[in-house]
């Protein structure tokens, strides 16, 4: 495997807020050009991790390195390369979107506003609107423009699609894909599996402050193992099929349904077997990140009970 440049490296990161809240011993690395997703329930530690990377909070243990620099100590230097959309949208005490963009540009020492203007057009944002009277979606768009306008190499996006309508969400995800094509490194958290599945190379599942699994979307999508759901017309045949040595990942006796996992090169063998059975239907079960993680979580919980 070729040597990939590490952009964000989190090592043994711990921030304990007590009562089991916080993040514990996180380890992951995001490489250059990669889009990395964070998924997890509310309070699972996504935002805490991002705050550590942004240098807003100091790790209790472990380190966070961005481009080889310490995220806490060199916080200011790192910001030259990092753009950020905060999870909570609250703007400074300014009147309009334009004045906000100008103030941000000044802080960023950004002279050329062409890219900002093109973003405003793409997102159909009215920048002359009063900041305080903006709808949630408008605010989110404003925050997106403010973060992307400086064209930084690293984007850290904390739940960037909340409040956007479905159409705008599509536009935004397209925008992210474009940024990714430009070679940017993106860290994005979300509660929605589908948008991460659509944009990310890898997705980490955080649960109770710990990373449960990091899924490689590409590997999963392009895997030669597929899943098929089969429903039998006859219960006896269903029972007979189950005795065969196929890997059953889901079994629903009530409907005489099974879901099996099978490698592509054994598909002919499967069809030969199925010729003798009366089926109601057979369909390929598409890869689904949500399902994937749910399975892992379920296993985790079961394992937990056994111990």
């Amino acid at each position, binding site marked *: 495997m070729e040597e990939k440049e590490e952009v964000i490296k989190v090592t043994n990161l711990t921030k304990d807020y007590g009562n089991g809240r916080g993040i514990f011993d996180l380890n992951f690395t995001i490489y250059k050009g990669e889009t990395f997703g964070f998924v997890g329930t509310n309070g699972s530690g996504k935002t805490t991790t991002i705050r550590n990377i942004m240098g807003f909070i*100091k790790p209790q243990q472990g380190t966070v390195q961005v481009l080889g620099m310490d995220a806490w100590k060199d916080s200011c230097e790192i910001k030259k390369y990092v753009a950020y959309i905060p999870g909570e949208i609250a*703007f400074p005490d300014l009147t309009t979107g334009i004045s906000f963009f100008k103030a941000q540009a000044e802080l960023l020492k950004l002279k050329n506003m062409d890219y900002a203007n093109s973003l405003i057009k793409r997102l159909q944002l009215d920048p002359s609107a009063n900041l305080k009277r903006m709808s949630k979606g408008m605010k989110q768009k404003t925050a997106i423009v403010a973060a992307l306008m400086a064209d930084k190499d690293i984007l850290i996006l904390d739940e960037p699609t909340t409040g956007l309508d479905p159409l705008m969400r599509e536009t935004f995800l397209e925008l992210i894909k474009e940024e990714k094509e430009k070679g940017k490194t993106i860290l994005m958290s979300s509660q929605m599996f589908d948008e991460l599945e659509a944009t990310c190379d890898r997705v980490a599942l955080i649960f109770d402050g710990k990373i449960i699994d990091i899924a490689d979307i590409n590997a999963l999508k392009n895997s030669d193992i597929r899943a098929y759901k089969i429903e039998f017309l006859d219960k006896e045949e269903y029972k007979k099929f189950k005795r065969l040595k196929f890997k059953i990942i889901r079994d629903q006796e009530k409907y005489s349904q099974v879901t099996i996992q099978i490698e592509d090169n054994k598909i002919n063998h499967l069809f030969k077997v199925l010729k003798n059975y009366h089926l109601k239907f057979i369909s390929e079960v598409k890869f689904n990140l949500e399902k994937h993680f749910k399975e892992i979580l379920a296993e985790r919980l079961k394992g937990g009970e056994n111990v």
Partner: protein
Amino acid sequence: MFSKALFKQSMKANWVKWTCVTVATCVMLAIVIIALGSLAIDNIRDSLKGVFQQADQESVLKSNSVDSYELYLTTAQFENGVEMINDSGFTELMWSIVIQPNYNDALNEYQTTNPGAELTEKALEEIKNNAVNSAYDTIISILPSVMPDADFTESELKQLLYIMMCAHEDNNSLSSAADIITAIENSYLQYVQDSAYEMYLQQEDATEETATASSLAARALASYAMESYKTQSAQEGFVYTEDTFKEEANSYVNQMIYDQVLATFNLGDDATDEEKTEAEYYAVASKVISNTAINTYELWLDEYDDTEKYPDMTEEQAKISAKEQASASLMDQIDEEVAAALKELGDMDMYGLIIGNLFYRVAGILLPMVYVIMVANGLLAGQVDSGSMAYVLSTPTKRRTVTVTQMTYLMLSLLAMFLLVTVTSVVSIWIVGGNEFTINFVEILLLNLGAFLTMFAFAGFCFMCSSIFNRSKYSMSIGGGISILMLVCTILGLFGSDVVPAAMRIGQMNFFNYLSIISLFDATSILSGGMDFLWKFGILALIGIVTFIVGVFWFEKKDLPL
């Protein structure tokens, strides 16, 4: 260390508050100064002061009246004795067989016991006293046979003899009865003058000049009394009684006071009717006061005569006490504490109280304090609480740059505010006119500086709280709460401090002054020309600087929930 962009942002966010507070404070100050200046609150103070001065003058007038009255009466009593010596034959007899031999004997005796000694004042005094004692023994043995109806007390007789000895000492070769009488009278006048001099010299605040002037006045008075007595006694059917002389003495003293007061107005020929009426009014009023004093004096003397009620009181004590009662003024009649309170009210500096202590230490800093509490919170804690600080800190801006910039904004906006307040105060005082106003330009500048330093200390404190807390509600309630609490303590403490007149002062409430750093703004010291305020200013500045620095460092170290 400083971000122009952020500074501009803070200015845009807070300029409305700044303008409102500045305009309101300036207008308030201008109204206070101009209102005070045009209403001339010092008039009240001046009239109170006038009352006390008048009371003092009244007391002096009364006491002088009683003194003069006493002198006049003494003279009259002496004249009673002179009636005796007006009988030429008896006088000649007295002179040749009582005064001359006794004086010469005493003189010889002194010279034999102290051979070659110089005759000093003291020696002459001793000689005279010895002569008086031996002459008294002689005269007491012969008096009933020569003057059966003579009525003298021992001291009266001895006083008379003493005066005759003095006359003899000055003119020992006199022979005619008329010359002897004149000499005795002259000695008497000298005696009155001397005793008056002694008496006045013992009074408080007396100088030799005033004592001399008073003794000369006493001599003139005695001389007048003597003339008056002679004129009256020459009339047919004149009988000396105490009451006639008291009446005479009273009306004479009243008239004398009237003339003296009228003379002080120094009315020339060109005096207007109005001036004349005024002078007349004061002269008559003084005359009435004098009459009242003398009558009161007599009433008290009668009262003290009651030996059952006042068994231990000598005549001397009775006179002193009666004079005290008679010369009591308005101030002596009211309760001592009330009098002290009223006097303090008269001496109070109303401008200092209202502008120095009430405006610059309470009312004038209330709005700036609200501004400081709100803005200091909004500059850090408010932005961290809402999350908008994330936009600043996700750009290459150091936390220290953020704090230093925000601190600079807070300080400069306060400075600008107080510069405008200073200009307002100076212009207002200039409009009102510097003369009427007891606060001068240096003092008003120092008051403004003091108010600024006080707010600087509060700004530092609120900024520190804003830096420490991530939640607006905590930053506001600790920073703002303590600030407002201190202001309230200063208001309460004002009622226990020296600037409030004793009548309104509650000493225990001074305790509140120890709870507030506004006490370090010592307006009283500034207005009374002291230097204490300087080190207190230093502490205020130090509080501001230290809290600002703590704020800057704390913000760098803490976790931000952004």
